[in-house]
């Protein structure tokens, strides 16, 4: 009977390697590098974003005459212009208000409704499914539907309010109510998705933790704030990040419903960029405004990740 010692084993391994040629070994080694494996996707993603980003930043320092096609370097002129532009400042303000409304009110409702719907009963599941549908409907369609429903004269909303003897509203036609109306639609549209995320977050919290809380004589409110919210914080955090960035880039409901009106009450950054660039052909200004938009959204993400991230409990 022959014995196999350590030396023999290494010998076997060498033999095995020798069976492959140099080309095989080269690719074999290369494919062990994770960066090589994600490279195709990364190249496409970076190529499309980085190129666009660089081009955008570059163009924000230029004046581009659409008739002659001539581009001239104007330094910070475009930035100076937009920051002195009443309309830009208004749209900046509107965007911030819109974001605060949709993000905070939205997240609060998503969590509350999520907690309420988190029961595996047929009715709860049905409601959850129905709530999700707006998310898969194109925003354009939603905007059209709401345009009719929120019509101050003869719209469903006001007719219902009138029937219930409640005060009616101007909705998107009123200077004061327009931004709120858009925020309402935006929250409504994202509700189903948010609730779904919240419910999946809630399902990840083990039931025995709640039982321990019951034995610890924690009431409903206390359980919600001291157990559910902290354990749901990664989910809440995710919703905060995605919805705040989403709010800043809101464009389609504005374009479909209000064109920024009435009296610029719903003029928002993304719409400003669109109008400057594609209507007034002020490419430089549009690019400068979109760089501002970029800085704000990246800033938001950074703030979210650092400040909120500290309070987030990751298990």
């Amino acid at each position: 009977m022959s014995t196999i010692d350590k030396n023999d084993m290494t010998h076997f391994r060498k033999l095995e390697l020798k069976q492959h040629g140099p080309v095989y070994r080269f690719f074999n080694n290369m494919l062990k590098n994770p960066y090589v494996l994600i490279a195709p996707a990364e190249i496409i993603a970076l190529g499309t974003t980085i190129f666009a980003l660089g081009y955008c930043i570059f163009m924000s320092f230029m004046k581009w005459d659409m008739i002659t096609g001539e581009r001239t370097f104007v330094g910070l002129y475009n930035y100076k212009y937009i920051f002195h532009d009443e309309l830009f400042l208004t749209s900046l303000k509107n965007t911030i208000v819109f974001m605060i409304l949709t993000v905070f009110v939205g997240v609060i409702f998503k969590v509350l409704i999520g907690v309420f719907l988190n029961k595996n009963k047929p009715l709860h599941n049905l409601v959850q499914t129905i709530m999700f549908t707006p998310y898969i409907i194109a925003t354009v369609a939603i905007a059209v539907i709401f345009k009719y429903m929120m019509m101050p004269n003869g719209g469903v909303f006001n007719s219902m309010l009138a029937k219930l003897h409640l005060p009616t509203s101007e909705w998107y036609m009123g200077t004061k109510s327009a931004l709120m109306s858009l925020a309402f639609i935006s929250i409504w549209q994202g509700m189903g998705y948010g609730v779904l995320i919240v419910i999946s977050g809630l399902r990840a919290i083990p039931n025995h933790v709640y039982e321990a809380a019951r034995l610890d004589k924690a009431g409903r409110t206390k359980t919600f704030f001291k157990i559910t919210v902290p354990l749901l914080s990664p989910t809440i955090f995710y919703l905060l990040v995605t919805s705040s960035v989403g709010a800043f880039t809101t464009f389609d409901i504005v374009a479909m419903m209000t064109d920024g009106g009435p009296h610029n009450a719903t003029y928002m950054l993304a719409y400003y960029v669109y109008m400057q660039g594609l209507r007034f052909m002020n490419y430089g200004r549009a690019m400068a405004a979109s760089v501002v938009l970029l800085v704000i959204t990246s800033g938001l993400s950074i703030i979210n990740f650092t400040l909120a991230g500290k309070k987030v409990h990751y298990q």
Partner: protein
Amino acid sequence: MAIVMKDIKKQYVGTTKPVMEHFDLTIEDGSFTVLLGPSGCGKTTALRMIAGLEDVTDGRIYIDENDVTDVDPGDRNIAMVFQNYAIYPHMTVRGNIEFGLKNYKIEKEEIKQRVDYVLALTGLSEYSERKPAQLSGGQRQRVALARAISKSPKAFLMDEPLSNLDAKLRTQMRSEMIQLYNRLKCTFIYVTHDQTEAMTMGTDIVVIYKGVIQQHGTPEEVYKSPANLFVAQFIGDPGMNALKLSSGGFVGFKPREAQIGAAEGDGLKIKGKVLTREYMGYDYMITIDIGCGNIVIRNKQHVEVDQELDLFIPQTALYYFDENQNRTETVQTGSVAEVFHVDD
């Protein structure tokens, strides 16, 4: 504090068969009562009903003569340790213990004293500011214990608290648990499927099978005089060998009572062939094919696989069971039909 379950019925919503019916159990004040039985027999259900985490379908539960059937878990003056610890993952060790105490509106000074006391008692003082994720399994178990102790409850309910620990830690925690019981001297209700745990820790053992209490007694009682064949086969390492007789009754003997070699005198004589031999340190666990099934004995004598053996069990070591599998003093006679195992 005596805990009484009176004529309890429990049927989970959406199931067709009740877990238990007419379940009566009295747990003596200050006892270390172990609910012991195979998986699925209803131990956890019984414990959770005492805790108030599960509703009873029918019947009443009393703690200290007070009907607590409709009382919230938090107001039953009990503490529970779960199998998976159920500590709050987002709170520090201290926070975990404080949480309940705050809800009971205990004064700040007193909370601090109690927390420091239980941390010292469970050897967690230096870990008080750590999060559960930074603790080992044994330490988390201690946090759960500390949290329970801090409430100075009248009774501790524990559901397989040691089953997630490795063997060595389990032995250690077992001894700590006994020390804790001796120190606190309050009622412990302990659920396990492990008869060794039950025998070593309990002052009282309640053997449950299919939602029915088979026997309620001291460890000595359930070991030495099992009420029926199920208890006889469930208790012991391994349990009793039972032979079904042509008359319908059973004769049984404990694995350690079988002597190897032919012998004279009154008793049971069996011939068989060794199937397996497992070395257990002090002795061997030997599985023997006796023709109508396999039996297991424990013996210090070295035997070889396939060896033919004569076994002798003295008359005094024999247990008899009637055709309903209940223990009887009446000697059961008849030819051996088969080796019998209570199915579980």
